[in-house]
């Protein structure tokens, strides 16, 4: 029988990998967006594990909304990326410094 702890460990590892990806990646905005998706996936797995083991459906409802919001955010992030690429012809993360003081 798979214990709840194992699911939480898997979710924590996915989360850590996503965070590491955001730290390591300095050159590619697409990788940044994909790491955010990984983090959201880890959190969703966590919610569903708890929902199963505590016999409460609210965890799955919340994951439903997380999926919705993550899809919308990915779409808009990619739209911004496309517009930025049209202007600057590069997808370097360090080129996004026009708001820098």
């Amino acid at each position: 029988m798979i214990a709840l702890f194992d699911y939480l460990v898997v979710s924590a590892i996915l989360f850590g990998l996503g965070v590491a990806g955001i730290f390591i990646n300095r050159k590619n905005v697409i990788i940044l967006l994909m790491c955010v998706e990984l983090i959201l996936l880890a959190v969703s797995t966590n919610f569903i594990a708890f929902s199963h083991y505590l016999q409460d459906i609210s965890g799955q409802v919340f994951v439903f909304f997380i999926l919705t919001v993550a899809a919308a955010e990915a779409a808009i992030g990619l739209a911004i990326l496309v517009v930025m690429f049209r202007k600057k012809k590069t997808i370097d993360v360090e080129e996004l410094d026009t708001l820098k003081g």
Partner: protein
Amino acid sequence: MRAVLCLVMSFFAASGLWFLLNAEFLAVTLVLVYVGAVMVLFLFVVMMLDVELAAIREGFAKHLLLGLVVSVLVIASLVYAVGTKSFGLEASIPTLQSVNTNNAKILGEVLYTNFLYPFELAGVLLLVAIVAAISLTFRRRRESIATEPSKQVQVRKSDRVRLVIKMDKEGLPTPKGEI
């Protein structure tokens, strides 16, 4: 490119995990919506933008150490916080559910009664996302010669006709010039 496909694979794996956790509706939704739409969108964008790859590889090593340290710290603190006795994980016993539970039906019953308001708000959020994405990236075709009927109706005579030479009574042009 490979990174996107690996992420697709991890989404499939997570979907399998969710099937094990008796969340069949959400697992299928993950594959259909998340992988099928969002990841395909990522693939389209990756294939559309031709980026020079050589500049991307540099700078990897010096950030690698910091990234690994931070991620190991995060994972360790999460696992430690969950594994202690005071978290109470032993109290939740994994229950076996009967095969006949319909996850989609249970979700639907809850979503349309208790969580109706957030459900409708999620719909509005998706609408806003559609409008935002289209308004950000829409480019009007410059050479399009489409007609605009509203402008056609608003035309005045002075926009279209200009009298250049004024004729007098015999039909000969006066040396007046323009009116």
